[in-house]
């Protein structure tokens, strides 16, 4: 079996690392966005959705 400089194994590993990186980036952005929404609602003296219920 010839050994190529880049085997399919490396391509799969790259796709996994790239995908995970993008997911983590999106997760960080999501947390940031959620924090902004929650904090701005708190400032306005109201809570989003069902949290306002006792």
């Amino acid at each position, binding site marked *: *079996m010839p*050994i190529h400089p880049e*085997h*399919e*194994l490396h*391509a*799969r*590993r790259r*796709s*996994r690392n*790239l*995908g*995970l990186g993008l997911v983590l980036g999106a997760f960080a952005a*999501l947390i940031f*966005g*959620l924090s902004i*929404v929650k904090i701005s*609602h708190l400032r306005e003296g109201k809570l*989003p*959705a*069902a*949290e306002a*219920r006792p």
Partner: protein
Amino acid sequence: MSELSAIDHSGHAGGEAGFGDYVQLLKPRVMSLVVFTAMVGLIVAPVPVHPFVAFTAILFIALGGGASGALNMWYDADIDRVMRRTASRPIPAGRVAEGDALALGVALSVLSCVMLGLAANWFAAGFLAFTIFFYAVVYTIWLKRSTPQNIVIGGAAGAFPPMIGWAVATGGVSMESLLMFALIFMWTPPHFWALALFMKDDYSKAGVPMLTVTHGRAATRRHILVYTVLLAPFAVALALSSVGGPVVLAAAIVLNALFIRGAWRLARRGEAAAEADRYRTEKAFFRFSLAYLFLHFGALLVERSLTAFGLGGW
């Protein structure tokens, strides 16, 4: 293990899964149903939700559904290897290790429930946790291999998402969310039994006690008809509830009439006729069952949109 030892003689890199393999573990097609029904449950609820909170909540409900899918694939890897329909899934195909699927399922289950609690409320988060438990433990581990009622009771797991969506907005349960649950719960058996009719050898080879295996195919056809008839009153009741209206009622009448007609045709068919046309009617009924659910929940969405313009609703 060195990199080269991970490569077998065919050049296949065993154990080195690509990102897509992990996505496949989450059963994206099932997730699309979870996303859609949860979104409808959230939107038709009487309490408005901030769009970003709604987006985040739906995302983590979908992720929770995906996590339960990964746990299902981990536990069912042995029977997935036997069934033609599932043999190419990441674990039986050797692309993902069983332990990795379990770790991913558990990690995403915890993450999705905690994040839903933080984003929306802890009632919805607890409901999501119960749904994951129900699908992974009650259905996959307990019922699937032990009773032909597996699909009937296990179908509850797939019916919970609109209730979770409703709980995100309202923080509770109501008659409307229970009717959305009932619609999917009663729809699930005919949907899966139609699949079992034309995937005829898969379940018996795997030793899964589907109704087709334990009670025969003629009995399965009769069961499909009975459940389809019992489904109709729930669909009409949902249309007459506060989330319904003329659009939902019209959709319910047309869709259920067509669904019952399809089930009647299945019940009247024998195996010889089905084999002669390669299960064309069964496959058509299965495809229509998918459209049935999407159109029904789509009608709820249309009705809700119309109320914003002073139209729709009762």
